[in-house]
């Protein structure tokens, strides 16, 4: 049983999180590096170029990499201090096995034998699909590809999914429906060249800080800025128009803006006729969505909604950008489609300075969602339920089509299946669901019910504490590979140092396991470049076509935008030029969206909306960033942000400890009272575990298509702690 092997306190004492403040030996001892390595930040989807300094085979510091075109040396605090995850006292350097009192080291061969034996034993008794694999979007393209192949061929389970399920899947599903391609439609350079930037549900300044400069460079040219967000974020503060939408009402707002655009005569009828299908259904669906009719629902005066429509219609070129704020909903796909409807109805896509993008969140949020570690997908962005796609991949893998399992469950569904004991064994890598999934107590119950759990990790995450075996894998700077950035630009990750102690590179661990599971000949890789070569050949002809991309080209050109089918193809920075979309008929699809309320609306008992998100100094579940001293110092703990009017009504003073209660649980945090959030909403950042976990409050409710959880709306009450 996967309950904790000993108290959480003693695990924390042994494995952290502890704080690393300084390079090895301290700042004073840091001298000229032996070498520098140009690579990328290990955190968000911006994938800023960064130079790591290496001394005595240890990463000792960072330098801006000014030649890399995307960020030109710019970095946020996470990128500057990321090097402190290396040489960290918490770093796992030997395989660990659970004992009666905690964890003890175990030789690699013994650990790997146990994993293979336990997987096969569980499958013998409960079927092949009783073992699941959870993976992550911080992995390189090579590793993401490998995990999909490993789960399907070596483990032989249909159940593999990844933590991008908590991130990009709503946007991805909507983009596929509307455009037939799931990728940012424009390179970021197009933001600078636009006349109007509209940002929805994206705290750009904290979650993708480098994008701030792109927006400001557009504003320096005279572009206007509209920001839609329930919180007055740093990018919203200076916006020309700020729409403080009530959480969960984004589709209603976008329908109203499109209604006003139609009323203003701003629709591009020629574009609609030549390049799209389905607009008439949208026109009907928005007929009763006048700004005046929905202003109370969306929480914004009608005049401001009309103003947004006017700015949109007046601007020759527009860039619409959105992120998790509109995507983390039970109607996340619909929210995104309602944005795309506005873009398509006005023909504002596929041109220089004019287009659309979701701001992908995770380090390899783009690439890791393309090459087959999703439950419904095969490499190259192929569909696991499409017989032709299955046949193509089966031929490349040297198996028969029936050897490839069918569509599996999504990550949150896998956790529910574990809870129901339908899934008995779990292998996880790059995923900390105990912190990142909604309703954390449920996730903990599920982990405690596993028969066998093996985690590949570099630090003992809150989730890995529940494992029977922990295999020490590799940090970002300890391996080569590629990732695909927010722009759809494939770039090179370069190894700076070797994994410490007995730790191994992730792909070596996975290939070793595959050999022990009897599939060694299909995992005979000797370097990440071997895996990439197989991936790119297999992706050829798929939607996400990497066929012409080689490590040599990436090194020479500082990245290549996919699709890039052949080695003499220049790559494709901008999609949909000339109004040609990814569907077989070349047309984009409109989708009529009817507003639906969130799964859990406020009521007398739980009268306040809770919304969750990030802070600039932390990343996702904090496995890395909660171990970096200078980042923790920026914001040591989560606080509950509330408007002074709400605080006054509840009798709460700034800094006072308050209890936030939902139907799932309660946590106590300090109040942060500030006039920078809607008075009907409170905000808690989600990077922390246990008693500080925002996800003890959030709801297990999912988008019906994408299965993304509704992190952005839960009903809570807030009480003074007596």
């Amino acid at each position: 049983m996967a309950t904790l092997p000993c108290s959480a306190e003693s695990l924390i004492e042994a494995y952290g999180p502890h704080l690393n403040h300084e390079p090895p030996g301290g700042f004073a001892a840091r001298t000229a590096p032996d070498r520098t390595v140009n690579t990328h930040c290990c955190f968000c989807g911006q994938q800023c170029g960064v130079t790591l300094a290496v001394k005595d085979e240890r990463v000792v510091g960072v330098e801006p990499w000014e030649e890399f075109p995307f960020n030109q040396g710019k970095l946020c605090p996470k990128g500057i201090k990321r090097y402190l995850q290396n040489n960290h006292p918490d770093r796992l350097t030997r395989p660990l096995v659970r004992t009666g009192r905690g964890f003890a080291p175990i030789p690699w061969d013994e650990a790997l034998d146990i994993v293979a034996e336990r997987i096969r034993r569980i499958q013998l008794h409960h079927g092949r699909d009783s073992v699941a694999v959870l993976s992550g979007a911080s992995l390189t393209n090579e590793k993401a590809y490998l995990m999909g192949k490993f789960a399907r061929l070596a483990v032989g389970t249909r159940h593999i999914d990844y933590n991008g399920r908590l991130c990009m899947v709503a946007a991805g599903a909507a983009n596929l429906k509307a455009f037939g391609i799931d990728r940012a439609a424009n390179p970021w350079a197009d933001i600078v060249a636009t006349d109007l930037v509209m940002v929805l549900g994206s705290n750009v300044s904290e979650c993708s800080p480098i994008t701030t400069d792109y927006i400001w460079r557009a504003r320096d040219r005279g572009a206007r800025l509209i920001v839609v967000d329930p919180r007055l974020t740093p990018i919203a503060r200076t916006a020309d128009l700020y729409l403080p939408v009530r959480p969960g009402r984004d589709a209603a707002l976008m329908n109203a803006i499109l209604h006003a655009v139609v009323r203003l005569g701003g629709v591009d009828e020629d574009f609609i006729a030549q390049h799209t299908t389905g607009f008439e259904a949208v026109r009907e669906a928005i007929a009763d969505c006048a700004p005046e009719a929905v202003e109370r629902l969306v929480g914004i005066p009608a005049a401001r909604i009309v103003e947004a429509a006017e700015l949109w219609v007046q601007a020759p070129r527009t860039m619409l950008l959105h992120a998790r704020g509109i995507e983390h909903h039970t109607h996340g796909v619909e929210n995104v489609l309602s944005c795309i409807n506005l873009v398509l109805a006005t023909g504002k896509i596929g041109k220089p300075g004019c287009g659309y993008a979701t701001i992908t969140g995770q380090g390899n949020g783009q690439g890791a969602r393309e090459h087959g570690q999703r439950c419904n997908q095969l490499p190259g962005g192929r569909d696991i339920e499409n017989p032709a796609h299955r046949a193509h991949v089966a031929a490349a893998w040297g198996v028969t089509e029936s050897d490839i399992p069918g569509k599996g469950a999504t990550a949150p569904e896998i956790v529910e299946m574990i809870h129901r004991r339908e899934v008995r064994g779990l292998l996880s890598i790059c995923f900390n669901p105990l912190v990142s999934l909604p309703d954390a107590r449920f996730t903990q119950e599920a982990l405690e019910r596993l028969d066998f759990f093996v985690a590949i990790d570099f630090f003992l995450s809150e989730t890995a504490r529940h494992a029977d075996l922990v295999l020490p894998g590799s940090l970002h700077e300890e391996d080569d590979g590629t990732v695909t950035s927010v722009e759809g630009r494939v770039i090179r990750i370069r190894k700076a140092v070797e994994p410490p102690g007995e730790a191994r590179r992730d792909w070596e661990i996975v290939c070793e396991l595959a050999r022990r599971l009897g599939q060694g000949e299909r995992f005979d890789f000797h370097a990440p470049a071997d895996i990439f070569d197989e991936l790119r050949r297999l992706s050829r002809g798929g939607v996400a076509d990497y066929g012409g991309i080689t490590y040599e080209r990436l090194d020479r050109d500082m990245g290549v935008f996919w699709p890039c089918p052949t080695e003499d193809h220049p790559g494709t920075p901008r999609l949909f030029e000339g109004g040609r979309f990814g569907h077989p008929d070349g047309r984009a699809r409109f989708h009529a969206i009817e507003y639906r309320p969130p799964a859990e609306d406020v009521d007398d008992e739980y009268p306040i909306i809770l919304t969750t998100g990030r802070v600039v100094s932390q990343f996702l579940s904090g496995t890395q960033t909660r171990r970096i001293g200078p980042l923790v110092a920026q914001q040591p703990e989560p606080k509950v942000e509330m408007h002074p009017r709400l605080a006054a009504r509840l009798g709460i003073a700034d800094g006072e400890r308050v209890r936030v209660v939902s139907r799932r649980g309660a946590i106590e945090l300090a109040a942060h009272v500030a006039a920078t959030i809607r008075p009907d909403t409170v905000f808690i950042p989600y990077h922390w575990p246990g008693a500080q976990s925002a996800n003890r409050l959030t709801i297990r409710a999912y988008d019906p298509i994408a299965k993304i959880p509704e992190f952005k709306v839960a009903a809570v009450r807030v009480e003074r702690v007596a």
Partner: protein
Amino acid sequence: MIQELYIDPNRCIGCRACEQACSECPGHGGIPMIHLDFLDRAESVQTAPTVCMHCEDPACASVCPADAIKVDAEGVVLSAMAERCIGCGNCALACPFGVPKLDPHRDLMMKCDLCYDRTAVGLRPMCATVCPSGAIFYGTRGEVEDIRRAQPLDRFAFGAQTVRTRNHLMVPSPTDLLEVTTTLVAPRSRAEQLLEECLC
């Protein structure tokens, strides 16, 4: 053309990349020489970086009894010379911008020297290199005038005293002289007003 810092608080997003990067510079020992402040967090997310403005006639140097603060040929006001500084704190009290900080462990005044070792080899100061919003820009006046709408300002009045600085503050409209008073408050932005209009 002389290269200077141009600081635009309007663009600042409060991320502290400047502080974190400054703390990485050799010789700082992990301590930043630039500081980030929330102006009034209860009311606004407005933040501003504060870094040495490198005054033409620096008050810190004038009041230093040990003559430890020197100005170089390009007008860069250097950090106190370690062998001279007596840690009296006069400079910290005299600076109208509140820049110098005393390191109590070393009895030494420390402040920004415009990344002397970086600029000497053609690199930009750390803070200006990393700033993700462009709130801290390093370049010539011509460059900043070409690419920015905001206007550079380099004269500040503190009561009867007027200070001209090497570095510039970027302000929304052309301003020859900014009178700094204790009652100076940032006007509410339009977005801040629009939040108050929201329907609950």
